């Protein structure tokens, strides 16, 4: 399995240094570099890397701020981060964020190898976690009707009616077979209501009913798209981690 790594660093030479060190590792595949915090946020959601080598001092959003942002957004696993900095003043904050490591510039090669080792261990741990059943036993049946607001009206829904949900302009679109409910409920709230039923976050902003998945088609860079039954025209994005989990889940069940 390849490790997808992304470098976020504003100094060109420092980027070169990391790129060089990372290309020496056989199991590492480089994603495009980010030169600012903003760029990192954008590239991260696009490439979903396994690890970020994150410089703390960057123009605009700092490394620490960017990392916090990514942590908050994480759905299944927070991104693995190795901070790189010239000075250790942020080590404690980095530790709080459960960063994999904190590398001081200039990089000591032995220290760098140690960081890589830690990184591989953390990735293994993640794999192992994936092996644990995601939802140990989904509720198979039950009355389980619940109410959600639908604009002015209130809709009565049962879990099996919902195909998928996605936020849209501060509202949540809840797609059923023949209509779309626009609700003020958040995705997180809905996910809570549906706890115990076979729903899965395939992506930061998609909650999908596993029972209606028709097929999974690979997209690029390890990500995929899902097509649902009865809704052939709609492609739902699946992040790389989510894809792995999805496969594991189906393997266990089947």
């Amino acid at each position: 399995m390849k490790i997808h790594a992304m470098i976020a660093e504003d100094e060109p030479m420092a980027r070169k240094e990391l790129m060089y060190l990372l290309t020496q590792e056989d199991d590492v595949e480089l994603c495009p570099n980010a030169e600012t915090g903003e760029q990192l946020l954008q590239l991260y959601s696009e490439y979903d890397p396994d690890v970020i080598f994150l410089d703390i001092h960057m123009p605009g959003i700092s490394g620490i701020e960017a990392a916090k942002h990514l942590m908050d957004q994480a759905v299944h696993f927070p991104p693995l981060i190795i901070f790189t900095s010239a000075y250790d003043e942020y080590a404690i904050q980095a530790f709080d964020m459960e960063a994999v490591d904190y590398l001081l510039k200039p990089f000591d090669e032995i220290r760098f190898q140690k960081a890589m080792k830690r990184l591989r261990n953390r990735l293994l741990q993640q794999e192992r976690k994936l092996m644990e059943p995601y939802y140990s036993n989904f509720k198979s049946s039950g009355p389980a009707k619940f109410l959600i607001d639908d604009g002015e009206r209130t809709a009565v829904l049962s879990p099996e009616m919902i195909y998928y949900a996605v936020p849209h302009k501060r509202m949540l679109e809840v797609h059923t077979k023949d209509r779309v409910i626009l609700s003020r409920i958040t995705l997180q709230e809905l996910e809570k209501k549906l706890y115990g039923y076979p729903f899965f976050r395939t992506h930061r902003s998609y909650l999908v009913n596993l029972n209606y998945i028709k097929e999974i088609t690979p997209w690029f860079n390890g990500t995929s798209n899902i097509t649902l039954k009865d809704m052939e025209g709609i492609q739902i994005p699946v992040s790389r981690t989510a894809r792995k989990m999805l496969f594991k889940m189906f393997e266990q069940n089947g």
Partner: protein
Amino acid sequence: MKEITIILFERLGLLLIIAFVLTRFPGFKSLLYREFNLKMLLVHSGVFGLFGIAGTMAGIVMDGETISHFEFVVKAVEKHQLVVSLSLVAIVIAGLLGGPIVGMGAGIVSGIHLLMLGGVGWIANGLVNPLTGLLAGLTARFFSQERVIPPLKALFIGIFPPVLHMHLLLIFHPDTIEIVNKIGLPLVLSNSLAIAIFTAMITIVLKEQENEAALATRRALTIAEEALPFLKKDHPKEMAHGLCNLLMNRLKLAAVSVTNKQEVLAHKGMGEDHHQPGQPVYQMLAYEAIETKEMKIAAARSQIECQHKSCQFEAAIIIPITEANDVMLLITFYFKKAHHIRPVELVLAQGLGQLLSNQLNVLSAESLKLHIRDAELRNLQAQINPHFLFNTLHLIATLFREDPKKARHITVQLAHYMRFNLKLVSNPLVPLEKECDHVNAYMEIIQARFSNRLKIIFHHPEMIPDVNIPPSTIQPLVENCIQHGLRNIASDGKIEVIIQQRDSLLQAIVRDNGIGFPEDILKEVTKKPLTNHQNSGIGLYNVNQRLISLLGEEAKLHVRNLPEGGSEISFQIPFKVQA
């Protein structure tokens, strides 16, 4: 009786004239200030005793109820005659001014004289004087808060001694009752009045003296204040010239000179031909003044020790001016005659010496404070920003592989930069050229690190002007641009550093095209350390403080936002600082 009264008043008039002369003696002052020692006690007892004897001599001799003769009493009188002495005036004054001991001493002296004169009533005459002196002295204790007893009180006190005298006469010589009848009242009247007038006289003398002292003090204060600008001068010769001119203008002196411990710095007034700056200090008295840190007075030519034959100085006052308990300067007042030195001159010289010393101390404390502050700030500035250092090392580490030649170049630049920073601690001023090298080294490193983000352009005259400036004043301004103005600029950042000569001013300008300063910070950024901005938050404040403390308010930083965006920080230095 009327006759006797008139005669007594006449005689007392004479006595008062003598008393007036007495008040003009310098030693008289010590009585007024009640500063006594054994020697002075004896002297005063003697003087007032003699005054008492004069009183006796000014008295009259009674033969029965008639005045036997009007001449002064000098010889011993006959057995049946009575000496009517006026000595009590002197004794009462002695007691009132000098206390019981002086009073009694004077009383004994004049008493013995009276005993020797003999005549009827010799016991009473001899006893009354010491007794009066003692009693007057003890009475004076009630008035110890007042330096001189007010005339009215003195008048009252003066009534009693003649009364006591009459008592004694009647006790020891009961047959003198007729004489007592006749002279009693006139004696009481004349004595008490004379005492009152005498105390009034003393009061006047005292006021005179106080006025003189106050005047001298005020003059000393004024001169010391006027001397302040000269004392501030760094150059000792400039300071000495200024002081000399000032003192010559303000005081009536033949000449004045200012010297340090070794040589004459300036001399004004007579004798400029041979008392010249640069001459060594050779007078014994000057060395004594340096040694003891006390004012010395030369009262003769020999003490001035001038080798020049036509030198007209006969007296001088040498005033040491001290700083931190060490003599820094000697100011010498020269006089043509010894008697030109009056007590007022001495008071003035003493006061002036102390005031100038104080001012010198205050000034040196002030400048010491400034220097310590500057050293502190430089020390702070010399602390290399760890981010800068380690990022540069990281850059070099990469360059070793990517571009070894450049790695070498940047290593050398870092060495320049750090060497300059190390020297920063010990040098308050450096040549502008060195400062430019420092800026250059910093620029090269920053450019290599952020080649994608920003460009730095450095304009300076081909020949960098030969001026000294506080070290590391320009580089922090550039650093500030990177840390703040261009902090969030990911590309196309631009920093311009301009050094230019404008008339007698050297201008340094640093501009960027970044975000500029927020309005609320713009005004404060140079005035106080902004601690919420890491690293260079204190940078501008630090530079501003050092510029002001070393070169004055006109060298302060000017910060403004540019209309086209970005900010500009500049300062200017006058060329005269070259020295």
